[in-house]
C-alpha cells in the first residue's frame, strides 16, 4: 500500500490531495483548495500539505511519494515532479474512465490533450500568442460586469442572442465589451459571446488532435463554468465532432489527482528497482 500526496500549484489556486493506493485499488482520502489571491503559493502549498497530514494523523515520513505538478518544480519536500499535461490526463481518466481527451482551461492558456486508456498523453495542443479568450480575460470581464465567478455559467446559459467579440487582443476585446455594454447588450449575451469564442478556440485545438472517441473531460480552473461547458458542446456539434464534453465537480483537482496517482506508480517502479538492486 502506498500513501501519496499530489500538490498542484496553479496560477489561481493551490490544490492538494491525499491518496491511498494499493495496486488498482485507488482511494481518495482528502482534498484541499486554496485560492492564491496575491498570497505566496508555496506557503499555501506547504500549509495545506501539513494540514492534511495532521488532519489524518500522518507525518511527512508516512508519505511514500509527494508528487508535485504545475508551477512547483522547486518544492524541496517533493519526491518528484510531473508536468501538468501528464497529470491532467491521468486525473481526467480517474474522474471519468471513458475520457480519451481533455480540455484544460486555465487562467492564461487552454490546452487540448488526447490520451490512451492508461492515461498516457498522446497528443496535445496549446493556445498561445495573445490572451484574449483566456480565463483571465473572462474573469476580468465578469468583474467589470459585476458578476461573480460562480454566476457566470448560469447567466451565460440564459443568452438569447450572443455577441461575439472580434478582438484578437485582450485589451481591444475589452473595449469591444465596453462598447457592447454601451449598446445595452445584456451581460448574458456578452458572457455567452466570450464562451463561444473560447469554446471555438478550444475545440479547434481538440479537432487538430484528431480524437474521435470517448468522453472529452474538462479540467482546470474553468471546468466548473457550466456555460463554458455548454458552449463547448455546442462548438463540438457545430464541428461535427460526436463526443460529449463533460465536467466533474472535482475537475479542478485533476492535476493533483494525476500527480498523486503517478507518484504511486513511480514509487512502485522505484521500489521494484531497489529490490532488484538489493537482490543482485
Amino acid at each position, binding site marked *: 500500500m502506498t500513501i501519496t500526496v499530489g500538490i498542484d500549484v496553479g496560477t489561481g489556486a493551490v490544490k492538494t490531495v491525499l491518496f491511498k493506493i494499493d495496486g488498482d485499488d485507488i482511494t481518495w482520502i482528502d482534498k484541499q483548495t486554496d485560492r492564491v489571491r496575491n498570497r505566496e503559493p508555496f506557503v499555501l502549498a506547504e500549509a495545506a500539505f501539513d494540514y492534511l497530514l495532521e488532519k489524518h494523523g500522518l507525518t511527512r515520513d508516512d508519505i511514500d511519494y509527494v508528487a508535485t505538478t504545475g508551477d512547483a518544480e522547486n518544492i524541496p519536500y517533493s519526491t518528484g515532479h510531473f508536468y501538468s499535461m*501528464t497529470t491532467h490526463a491521468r486525473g481526467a481518466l480517474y474522474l471519468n474512465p471513458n475520457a480519451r481527451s481533455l480540455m484544460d482551461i486555465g487562467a492564461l492558456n487552454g490546452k487540448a490533450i488526447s490520451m490512451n486508456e492508461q492515461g*498516457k*498523453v498522446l497528443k496535445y495542443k496549446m493556445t*498561445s500568442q495573445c490572451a484574449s479568450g483566456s480565463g483571465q480575460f473572462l474573469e476580468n470581464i465578469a468583474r467589470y460586469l459585476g458578476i461573480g465567478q460562480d454566476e457566470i455559467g448560469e447567466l451565460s446559459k440564459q443568452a438569447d442572442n450572443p455577441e461575439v467579440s472580434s478582438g484578437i487582443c485582450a485589451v481591444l476585446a475589452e473595449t469591444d465589451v465596453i462598447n457592447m455594454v454601451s449598446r445595452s447588450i445584456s451581460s448574458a449575451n456578452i458572457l455567452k459571446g466570450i464562451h463561444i469564442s473560447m469554446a471555438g478556440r478550444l475545440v479547434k485545438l481538440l479537432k487538430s488532435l484528431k480524437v474521435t472517441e470517448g468522453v472529452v473531460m474538462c479540467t482546470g480552473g474553468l471546468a466548473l463554468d457550466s456555460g463554458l461547458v455548454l458552449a463547448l458542446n455546442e462548438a463540438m456539434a457545430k464541428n461535427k465532432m460526436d463526443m460529449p464534453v463533460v465536467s466533474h465537480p472535482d475537475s479542478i483537482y485533476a492535476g493533483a489527482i494525476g500527480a498523486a496517482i503517478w507518484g504511486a506508480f513511480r514509487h512502485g517502479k522505484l521500489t521494484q528497482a531497489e529490490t532488484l538492486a538489493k537482490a543482485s
Partner: protein
Amino acid sequence: MATREEITDRCQALYDDLTFTAAREWKAAKDGRHVIGFMPMYVPRELIHAAGMMALGILGGGDNLEVIQGDAYYQSYICRIPRSTIELLLTDRLDFVDGMLFPSICDVIRNLSGMWKLLRPDVYSHYFDVPQNYDREVGGEFYIHELGVLKEDLKISGRKITDDDLRNSIALYNESRRLTRELYQFRADKPWLAPSSEVYLINRAGMLIPPEDHNQLIKDYIAAASEEDRPKRDNSRVVISGSFCEQPPLNLIKSIEMSGCYVVDDDYMLVNRWFTKEVPTDGDPLKALSYTFLEASVKMPSCFEPDEDNKGQFLVDSVRENNAEGVIFAATSFCDPALLERPILQDVLNDADIPHISFKYAENTGQMQPIREQAGTFADSIKLWS
C-alpha cells in the same frame, strides 16, 4: 590546455557580446582586413575566407538587446530577427562590417536586403541567391555564375581570389564541418557529457571567430568534455527541428534539458555543417562548391525538395541515426517556411510512428514555463512508459 569551463566561458562571452568585439579585434589586428556579415543560412564562407576576409554570422540580438528602431521598421506579425538586426545596424554595432550577405531564407530576410541598401547605400550588401533547381546544367550553371559574381564583389578586400586560395579555404571548411559533425556525434553518444547549451555555444562561436580558431576550439572542447565525469540523467532523447534561422534564447535550450530532454540533434546554425559530404579540393573550385550544394546539402524548409517521396525523410533519418525518441518542433513565431513545412513533417513522423511536440518561440521569449511544460510532459511520458 583549456578546461571545459574556460572554453564554454569564452563561448558564452562571445555569445553575450552584442558589439562583436572578437571580430572587431580580428579586423583591427592587421591593416586591410575586412569583415563580411551574413544572416543565418548557407553562404559560401570559403569565398570570403579565400579573399582574406572574415565571415561573421549575424544571428539577431537575442534576449538582451533592447529593440526600439527595429520595431519602428516592422509590424507586430513579423518575426524578431530582422528587427533586432536592424537595431544592431542602427545602433552602430555593425559599423565595422564591410559588407552584408542576405542568403536565401525567406521573404522577410530577402526584403531586409533591400532595407540595407536603403539604410546603408555606401556599404556593400548583396542578396545571395542559391538555386532551387538541382540540375548541374541548369541550377548548377546559375549558381556558378552567382558564385562568380560574389567572387568579383569580394574584390573590395583588395585581393584577387586564386583557385588555390579557394581550394585551401574549402579544405579548411571541410575540416570545420567534419569537426562540427564530430561534436554532434559526441553529444548524441553521451549527451550528459555535452549539454546542449554548451554544444550550442561552441557551435555559435563558429559564427563569430575565424574558422582556424574555431576548429581548435571544438577539438579542445571534445577533449575536455570527454574527460569529465558528469551525472547521467533519466532524460528522453529528442531532435529539435525548425530553429534554423532566428535563434532561441539560451534559457530555452537550457529549459528543454532541465525539463528532462536530451537534445541529440538540432538545426541550429546549419551553415556549420551544411554539406553532408566533403567538397572536392581538386578541379574547378566554383564547380566543386556548386555541385556539392546541389547534391549534398542538408534538407531544410527554405529549399525545395524535388522528390515528394523524400520530403521530410531527413528528420526520420536523424531520429533513427541518433536513437532519438521524439522530435520537438521549435519554430520561431511568424516563421513562414518552418511553420508551413511543419504539417508535412508531422505527417511524415506520424507515418514513421515517431512522437513529436511543437511550440513557438522568439529570440527574446521571456517565459519558459509553457516550454518546460511541454518538454516536461514529453519527458514524463518516457519516464513513465519506457
